[in-house]
C-alpha cells in the first residue's frame, strides 16, 4: 500500500512544478492563488496537488477545504485515485472540510456534528433563487467521524439562513480552529459563485469576507520571536505582534460569458465578473485551465496558463517570482502530467 501510494503521489504535479521553483519563496502571508477554469476542464487535480503539497511539505500547518460544489465524499474518492488519503487527514485534524453544498439552504444546526437535520427547510428562510421546497432533502452519506473530542470538527457546514453573509464565518472559525504549528493556515475555496448566484449574497460582502479571511489572526502566537523552518529553504520569522495570515487558493470559472460584460448585462453577470476580476487584480498568480484551442486531443486534457498577478509585484525583500508559462496537461487514471507544448507528452 505504502509503495503504491508513493508512486501514485509522484504523478501529481506539485505547485512547484506548476508555478516554478520559486513558489516556495512566495510571501507566506496573505498569498492568493486564483485558479480559473472553463466548462469542460476540471480543477480537482489542482486541489489535490495543493493538498498534497500542504501535507507533505511539513510544518504541520492545517488546511481548510471549502467547497460549494462538491461533498466530502467526492474529494475522498478523487483523492484516493491520486494517492491522497483525505479521510485520514480529516481524522488527524490537519484538514477541515467546510461543506457548502449539503446544508446551504437548511437551517443551521447548533452543533455542527454528525446529526443531520431531519426537517424540511422552512419556506421563510429560503433565499431567492433557492430550490423549491418540495421534499425534505435527505442528508447525504455521512463520513463516519472517528475524531476524538479534543480535535476540531473535521466537517463543518455552511447554511445561509437569516444570517446572510455572516454565515460564511463558519469558514473563518474553521481556519482559527486549525492546529498552528507556526505555519500559515491554507484555505482552498471552490465555487464561491454559488453563494452569489444561489444564495443571493452581495458581491461586496463576499469580497469583504475573502479579504478578512486572508488576514485571519491566529491566537496561539508565541510571545517571543521564533524561527520556524517550514521547508528546508523556507525559514520564517514570526514576530510576536505579527499576524499569521492564511494562504488562499480560490477556484472560480472564467468562461467568457462570465467575464465579458456589457452595460446591459444582468446584475448577476456583473457581480460574477466583478468578483473574478477583483480577485485577479489582487492575486499573486493566476492559474487558468482551458481546453486546447485547436480542438480535442486524445492525450491532452487542456492548457494550463500561469500568469503573474499584481500581488506578486510588490518589492518584498526576497520574495519569489511567479514565472509565467503555458503548458499542456493530461489527466488520466495514472495521474496528471504537465508538459511543454511540442514535447508530445512522452
Amino acid at each position, binding site marked *: 500500500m505504502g509503495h503504491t501510494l508513493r508512486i501514485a503521489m509522484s504523478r501529481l504535479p506539485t505547485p512547484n512544478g506548476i508555478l516554478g521553483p520559486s513558489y516556495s519563496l512566495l*510571501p507566506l*502571508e*496573505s498569498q492568493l492563488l486564483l485558479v*480559473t*477554469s*472553463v466548462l469542460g*476542464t476540471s480543477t480537482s487535480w489542482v486541489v489535490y496537488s495543493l493538498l498534497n503539497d500542504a501535507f507533505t511539505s511539513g510544518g504541520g500547518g492545517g488546511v481548510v477545504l471549502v467547497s460549494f460544489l462538491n461533498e466530502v465524499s467526492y474529494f475522498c474518492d478523487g483523492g484516493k485515485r491520486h494517492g491522497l488519503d483525505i479521510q485520514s487527514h480529516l481524522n488527524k485534524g490537519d484538514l477541515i472540510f467546510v461543506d457548502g453544498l449539503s446544508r446551504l439552504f437548511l437551517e443551521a444546526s447548533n452543533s455542527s456534528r454528525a446529526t443531520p437535520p431531519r426537517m424540511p427547510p422552512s419556506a421563510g428562510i429560503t433565499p431567492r433563487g433557492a430550490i423549491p421546497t418540495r421534499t425534505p432533502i435527505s442528508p447525504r452519506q455521512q463520513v463516519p467521524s472517528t475524531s476524538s473530542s479534543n480535535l476540531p470538527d473535521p466537517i463543518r457546514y455552511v447554511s445561509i439562513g437569516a444570517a446572510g453573509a455572516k454565515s460564511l464565518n463558519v469558514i473563518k472559525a474553521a481556519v482559527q480552529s486549525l492546529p498552528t504549528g507556526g505555519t500559515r493556515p491554507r484555505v482552498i475555496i471552490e465555487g464561491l459563485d454559488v453563494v452569489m448566484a444561489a444564495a443571493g449574497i452581495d*458581491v*461586496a460582502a463576499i469580497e*469583504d469576507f475573502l*479579504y478578512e479571511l*486572508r*488576514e485571519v489572526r491566529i491566537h496561539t502566537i508565541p510571545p517571543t520571536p521564533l524561527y520556524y523552518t517550514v521547508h528546508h529553504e523556507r525559514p520564517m520569522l514570526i514576530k510576536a505582534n505579527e499576524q499569521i*495570515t492564511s494562504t488562499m487558493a480560490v477556484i472560480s470559472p*472564467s*468562461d*467568457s460569458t462570465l*467575464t*465579458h*460584460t456589457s452595460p446591459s*448585462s444582468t*446584475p448577476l453577470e*456583473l*457581480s460574477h*465578473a*466583478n468578483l*473574478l*476580476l*477583483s480577485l*485577479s*487584480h*489582487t492575486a499573486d498568480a*493566476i492559474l*487558468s*485551465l*482551458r*481546453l486546447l*484551442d485547436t480542438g480535442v486531443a486524445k492525450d491532452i486534457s487542456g492548457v494550463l*496558463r500561469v*500568469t*503573474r*498577478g*499584481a*500581488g*506578486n*509585484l*510588490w*518589492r*518584498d*525583500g526576497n520574495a519569489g*517570482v511567479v*514565472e*509565467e508559462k*503555458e503548458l499542456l496537461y493530461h489527466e488520466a487514471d495514472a495521474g496528471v502530467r504537465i508538459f511543454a507544448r511540442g514535447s508530445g507528452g512522452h
Partner: protein
Amino acid sequence: MAPPKANEKTVQYRRTHNLLLGTRLLSQRGTPSPFTLILDSLSQSSIPLVEEYIARAKTARVNIVYVSFTTPRPPKDVSRLKVIRARGKPLDALQKEIMATTETVVPVEKQAEPASTPQTQNLVIIDSMNHLVASSSEGGGQKNSMSLAFFLSSLLAPSISLLATYHVDIPRVSQPPTANANAYAPDPADLLKYLCTTLITVHSPSHIFAQKRALDKSLPPPRFGLEEGIEGAIASLGTNTGWCDTCTAKERSRGLIYELEHRRMSGRAMTEWFFLMCHPSKKTKEKLILLEDHPAYNPAITVPAAESTEGLDDSDLTFSLGLTAKQKVDRDGVVLPYFDAQSEDGGTGGRILYVPGREDDWDDEEDEI
C-alpha cells in the same frame, strides 16, 4: 489611444520638454499634480509605477498615506508611510481618518515664522478607486453616503497630492436606481477622468511592443487580456513581466509603459508616452525615458549613422552593390589629376594653363595668370 508613431521631427523637442515634465510629476517636485489617476488593467498593474512614486517621495521626505482597500501587504520598508485600512468604512469616516493622518496643520507658534518651516508635502495613495466608488453615493453605496466629488474635493489642499488607481476592467455592479439617484449623472469612472489633473494609463511593454511590430508590418495588432479571444483566458502571457535584456525576472517587472495626460492650470494638456525602465539609464541616470527612445520600440534610435551604411541590406537586389577586396585595392591605386595639386610643393597639376590668343584684350594691370 494607440501608441505614437516614431516622429523624428518632434522627438527632440519632446525629449527636453515632455520628459522634464514627466520626471517632475513622478518626483513630486515643484507643484505636484493635485490628483493623479492611474488606469490599469489585468494586463499591467499600476503597482510598479506606484512603487516608483513611493520611492521618489521617500527621498523627497514626503509624508505618504497609503489607503488600502485590497492590498493585504502594503510596502513595509518605508518609514514615513502610514497605512489606513479602508475596507468597509463609510466615506465620511475615511475622509476624517485621512485628514487626521496627513500633516497639514502647521502649529500656531510656527506660523509666526513661515520661512523656517516649509509645509510638509503629503502623498495620499488609494489602491483601488473601484471600491471607493462602490461606497460613494454615485456608485450606489449606502444611503446618505458621501458623494465621490465631495469626498475628493474635501481631500484637496495645497499640501496634499492624491495618487489613485482605477481598475478599468472590473465592471461596476449597478444597484437598482433609487429615487434620489440622478439618471443623467455621468458614470463615476468618467467623473474621475474629468476631475483628475493627471491621467495615466499603464500598459505592458511586451504587449505594446508586439502590437508595434505587427503595425510595422501592416498586420492587425494582436489583442491581449480579456480581449485576447481565447475562451477562459483572462490574462495573457506577457502580463506584468516588464521588459529588460539584462535584469532578472524580478527586477525586470519593474518596467512598464505609460501614457500620461497632464492638464495644466491654463487648460492646455500635454500627452506623452513614457517608458519607465527597471534600472536607471547609464547616460542620463534616469529611469524615465520617452517610449520612442526605447530600442525595442523604435529600433532606428540605436543605429548610429556610421554603422547604418555598413550593414546595408541588399538581400533583395539582383546585383551586388558592394566591392570585393581586390576591387577596393585597385580603386585605391587609381591616381586622379587633382591629387597632384594637393601635394606639399603645390605640384603642377593645379595650374590653369592658358595661352592668350590674338583675340584676347590683354590688360597687364588687371589680368594675370
